[in-house]
C-alpha cells in the first residue's frame, strides 16, 4: 500500500498525456504490459540492480516493451531514472481508476447469499448504475453468511441490503432503552 500518493501522481501525468493524444485505450494496454514486465522478479532485479549500467536497462525496456508506444517506453525509463520501478503495479491500478472515471465506468463488488440469475444480474447492474450514475461493471461473490438480500460495494460506498444487517439493526432497535419506544409510538 505504500507509495500510493506517488503512484497517483505518475498515473495522473500519464493520463493527461493519454488524453492529449486521445490514446487512453492504447495506454491501458501499454501500462498493463509494463506493469506485468516490471512485476516479474528477474526483470525487476535487473532494473533495480545498481551495478547494471543505465544504458543496459534502457535497452532491456526497449526489448521487453517492443510492442508498446514510444511514450510508454519513455515512462518505463523515467521510472528507472527515478528509482520508482516498484510503483509500476500501483500506477497501473491508479491509471485504470482514472480511465474508469473518465469513461463513466464504476466497478462494483456484489455479494449475495446464492448465485444470481442473469435477469437479476442485469437488474442489479442497472439499479446500481442509476444510484452512482455510471456504467457499473460487477464482480460477484457468493457468501451464505449474509443469509439473504444483497450487499454491493462501489468504491467507498456500500449498499447494504443483507438480511444479516437488517436482523442486527432490528436487534439493536429492540434492545434500545424504553424511552426510545415511547417516542416512536
Amino acid at each position, binding site marked *: 500500500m505504500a507509495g500510493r*500518493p506517488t503512484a497517483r501522481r505518475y498515473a495522473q501525468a500519464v493520463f493527461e498525456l493519454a488524453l492529449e493524444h486521445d490514446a487512453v485505450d492504447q495506454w491501458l494496454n501499454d501500462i498493463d504490459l509494463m506493469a506485468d514486465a516490471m512485476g516479474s522478479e528477474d526483470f525487476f532485479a535487473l532494473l533495480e540492480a545498481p551495478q547494471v549500467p543505465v544504458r543496459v536497462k534502457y535497452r532491456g525496456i526497449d526489448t521487453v516493451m517492443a510492442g508498446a508506444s514510444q511514450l510508454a517506453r519513455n515512462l518505463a525509463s523515467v521510472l528507472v531514472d527515478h528509482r520508482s520501478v516498484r510503483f509500476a503495479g500501483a500506477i497501473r491500478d491508479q491509471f485504470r481508476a482514472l480511465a474508469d472515471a473518465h469513461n463513466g465506468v464504476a466497478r462494483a463488488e456484489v455479494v449475495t447469499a446464492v448465485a444470481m440469475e442473469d435477469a437479476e444480474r442485469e437488474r442489479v447492474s442497472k439499479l446500481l448504475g442509476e444510484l452512482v450514475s455510471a456504467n457499473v461493471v460487477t464482480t460477484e461473490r457468493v457468501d451464505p453468511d449474509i443469509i439473504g438480500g444483497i450487499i454491493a460495494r462501489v468504491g467507498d*460506498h*456500500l449498499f*447494504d441490503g443483507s438480511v444479516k444487517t437488517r436482523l442486527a439493526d432490528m436487534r439493536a*432497535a429492540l434492545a434500545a*432503552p*424504553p*424511552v426510545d419506544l415511547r417516542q*416512536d*409510538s
Partner: protein
Amino acid sequence: MTIRGQDIASVIKRQIEEFGGELTLVDVGTVVEAADGVARIHGLSDVRSMELLQFPGDTLGMALNLEEDSVSAVILGGFSHIKEGDEVRSTGRIVEVPVGDALVGRVVDPLGRPLDGKGPVNTSETRPVEQIAPNVVSRKSVDTPLQFGVKIVDGLIPVGRGQRELIIGDRNTGKTSLCLDAIINQKGGDVTCVYVAIGQKASKVAATVATLEQHGAMDHTIVISSAASDPAPVQYLAPYTGATIAEHIMYSGRDALIVYDDLTKHAWAYRQMSLLLRRPPGREAYPGDVFYLHSRLLERSARMNDENGGGSSTALPIIETQAGDLSAYVPTNVISITDGQIYLQPELFTAGIRPALDTGLSVSRVGSAAQTKGMKGVAGRLRLEMAQFREIATFAQFGTDDLDSSTRAQLERGRRATEVLKQVELNPLSMEQQVTIFYLLTSGALDDVAQENILAFESGWHEYAAANIPDVLGEIASSGDLSDEAGKKLDEAAAAYKQTAGL
C-alpha cells in the same frame, strides 16, 4: 419506567413491515494497518473528523487524522481482534454521549455506557462531545458562591459558580478529598455534580463512589470513569464527556460542578495518542496543541447570563505535580487557563495542617465577589491577619522574647487562625457556621483560649450555637449578612459557652 407489551409489538410490527425497505448507504473503508490502538484506513472518502466508525466485532473508533490517502482512527475499546483488511463503516455520527437527568446517580464510561450494573441509562438525548464554548455575550461575571463547606476555601479562596479553580499539589496531599468535600457539601442543594476519573486505578474510583454513596452524595452526582486499564483514546474522551453532561445542565438554566481528576493523566493519554498517530512531538514529547487541549475544555465552564438561562458550570480541574514543581509544562498551562489555584503542600500536610492549603500561593481571581456579605466582612479581616502572620512568623522562629506586645498578639492570633482553618475531611460546615467561628476569631473571643484547645472549642461551639442561638444562625443563613445586633448576640453566646465548657 415500564415497557408496555404493545409498545414492543408495535415496534416489531413496524420493523417487519419495513423489512424489505430501502437500502442503506454507508461509507466504507479497509484497514491497511492496525497497531497500538490506532488503525490506518484506506477509503472512507466522505468521513468527517471526530466521526464514530464501526469496526468489526462491535468496536467503535474515532476518525482523527484525515490525510490525502488514508484516515487514521483511534479505536475506542479492545483492539486485539482488528486486523489488516477489515471493513470499517462510517456511522455519520460525530462522537456523542447521552445527557440528561437519567444519568444522575450513575457511573458511566466516557461513551455514556453504564458501568454500575443498574441497567441501561434511560435517556434519548445526546450531545456531541466536542462543543464550542459559550461566547462572550452569553456570559456573565461570577457572583454567586459555590460553598465547599471547607472553612479555609470558603473563607480565603472563595470559589463562585461558573469559575474554574485549579486544585494542584503533589500526590497524597488531599486533592481528591477536597473535591469530594465540595461534592458532598452540595447535598440537598441545587448543584448537580459530575466527577470525572481519568486514568485512575479502578480501586480508587470504586472507593470514591463508595464514599459518595456513604454520604448520600450520589443522589446529585454523575461519575464518569475511565480506568488506568482503558485505552488512551477512552481516557482522552472522559473530560469532554463530563463537560458535555455538565453543559447540558448549565444550558437548562441550572448549576453544575465538575471535577476533572486529573488533567495530568489526561495530558499523558493525549500524548500517547498523538505520538501513535505520528503527530510531531514538542516539549516533553507533548504535541503542539496540548495547551488547546485543556483551554478548550475549561473554557466550556461558564456562568450564563439571564437571557441564556443563568445556569453555570463550575470546573475543578486537578493537576498532580512532581516534587512540588509548579513550573512544569502542563501545570503552568492549566494555571494560566484557570481563574486561580488551590495549592496543597506536602510539608503542611505532614505537619498536620489539613486541608494542606498554602495560603500564600493559592489564589482565587474572582475574589470576594463570590462571597456572601457576612462572610466577606469576617473573611476580609481574617485574610489580612493571615498575611501579616505569615510575614511575622518567618522572623518569629528565632524567638519571640524581643518582640513588642502588639506583634506578639498578632502572632498568637495567627496561630489560632491556623488552628481554626484546620478541618477534618468529609465534614463540611455550612456558611453560617463558618461565619460565626470566623467572627469569634477576628473579634478576639478566641484570644484567651489556649491554642491546643481551639479544635475542641470549635466542635463544641457549633453544637452549642445550634442549640442556643438558632435564630442568629438562621438570620445569617437567610440574609447572608452578619448584622451588628447578631454580632452582639454571638459575643454573649461565646462568653456563656466559654463558661459552661470551661475553656
